[in-house]
């Protein structure tokens, strides 16, 4: 069973992000890059599907500049078989739809039976690409899944998706698109053997032309990035507990009008 996992390379949340010389993008100097955390749940689930069935292949795909090969390598080190790098300079500032079109084209070539995304990337927090790929391919899709079980005959998958107030369970025919929510599994760490082995695995470069696509413009563009407006300075309420609590409640009621 072939499972394809698109992953995104994003700045580690702990690193400082600063607006760059071009105010539509961040300054990338000194940034530590990681695989977006939700994508790790997707990679883990793909590996578990393969291991449980005893056969199959996990292919990871990413869009972006040369450095995204590091992200692909860490997925290969976790246990994916091979990687595809959509290495197209014209798509450096791709929006979700352009990204989805590129990924849909890769999926048409690769013909996996399941495509597993993370629920959203933690840089732009858009959470749209997986769903958009499903629409472009005309496939069913379940987002924010917390559990997944493939039927014995390998033709469908039963998933539980997180919704307000509960979990909705659906059975989807394959092929389909799923997006992973935290809680689906615990991603593994790559082993030393995995890391060594990953160096020998294939990362195939593809361009827009290889996918039969024109490098078209984005539908949604960043006009500018801005720093957060500073919050008004806060107030530490002094005094012993009883006094402080009384004053806090008064302030919330009378000054902040929050109660």
């Amino acid at each position, binding site marked *: 069973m072939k499972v394809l996992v698109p992953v995104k390379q994003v700045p580690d*949340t702990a690193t400082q*992000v600063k*607006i760059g010389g071009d105010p539509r993008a961040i300054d990338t100097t000194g940034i530590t890059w990681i695989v977006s*955390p939700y994508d790790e749940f997707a990679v883990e689930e793909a590996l578990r599907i393969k291991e449980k069935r005893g056969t199959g292949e996990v292919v990871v795909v990413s869009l972006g500049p040369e450095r995204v090969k590091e992200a692909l390598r860490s997925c290969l080190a976790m246990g994916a078989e091979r990687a595809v790098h959509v290495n197209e300079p014209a798509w450096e500032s791709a929006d*979700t*739809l352009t990204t989805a079109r590129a990924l849909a084209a890769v999926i048409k070539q690769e013909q996996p039976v399941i495509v597993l995304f993370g629920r959203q990337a*933690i*840089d732009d*927090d*858009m*959470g*749209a690409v997986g*769903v*958009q790929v*499903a*629409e*472009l391919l005309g496939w*069913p*899709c*379940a*987002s*924010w899944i*917390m559990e997944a079980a493939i039927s014995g005959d390998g033709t469908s998958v*039963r998933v*539980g*998706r*997180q*919704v*307000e*107030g509960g*979990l909705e*369970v*659906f*059975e*989807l*025919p394959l092929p389909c698109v799923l997006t992973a929510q*935290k*809680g689906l599994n615990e991603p593994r760490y790559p082993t030393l053997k995995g890391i060594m082995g990953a160096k020998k695995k294939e990362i195939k470069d593809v361009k827009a032309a290889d996918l039969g696509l024109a490098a078209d413009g984005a*539908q*949604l*563009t960043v*006009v500018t990035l*801005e*720093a957060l407006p500073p*919050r*008004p300075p*806060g107030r*530490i309420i002094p005094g012993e*507990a*009883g006094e*402080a*609590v009384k004053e*806090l*409640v008064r*302030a*919330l*009621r009378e000054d*902040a009008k*929050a*109660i």
Partner: protein
Amino acid sequence: MANAFWCVVEDDRAGRPKKANAEVLGEAARLAAQTGGQAEAVWLTDKAEADGLGHLAEWGAERIWLLEAPGLAPYRGEVWTPVLAELAGKEQPKAILGAVTSRLRELMARLAARLGVGLSADSVAFDFREGTLVATRPVYAGKLLSKVSWAKAPWLATLRPNVFKPRDLLAGRAPVVERPAVTIPQPTMAFVERREEVSTGLPELTEAEIVVSGGRGLKGPENFVILEELAKVLGAAVGASRAAVDAGWRPHRFQIGQTGRTISPKLYMGFGISGAIQHLAGMRTSKIIVAVNKDPEAPIFKIADYGIVGDLFEIAPLLTQEFKRLLEK
């Protein structure tokens, strides 16, 4: 109406629109007023309560597109998307907006792909620049704000709950309801079951106006009772940091932050939470932030409006008492 700003209605699955629609309609009306358009509601449902239509009108919908058919429940993106796309194709609205909920964040992304337009997810503000809509959305764990704009209409966006102001109620207005014929495509996804969460009797985290939240400082699952008592008095929801969730003290659905829920209540109160950047990512747009932590250097104090340096086991019960006294008056 070609200048219409649509609000895709989010209902409670029992035929009643949720209050988040009031916020979306309020913003839709504000924006529409600047382009000579109007706010309209589009409601996909298997069964609409008549009251619901009245509420939508009161909240500002000049017209309601009611798409009612048994095949629309439960929600499936593959069914709703073509239905909504067909109506949008005929009516050519200027913008299609919806609250951030599990259904709508998926539906709007899918619709954007079908219509070949951009989507601004989880938006927190809108304005116009040279006649084109510009949306503001938090990015990089809420550390920066990104202003985005569309290459063409319709402008699709989802709106973070609790951020936008509803307009004043237009009481007693009779709704204009259109019931266009709908063709419901055959779904491929089969609904199996819905597993309800055990009700806490408290409001849903993303909808609550007040959220009381606990972290590793609570020391164990049994101590969340202290926060639940406070929450009951305030009609608040109880949330948690990832540390508390990963320790197994609370189920994941209560987690606030980058890998949890994003909330924007009127009042957020954090107890025994350090305020790591990933936690702030989920609650930074709260209107008033209160922090109780025994460490005066805890980063949460940097964004708190009010802070008490002290032991939560002493402070939280005192707060419960004090609020009880005040609210019972």
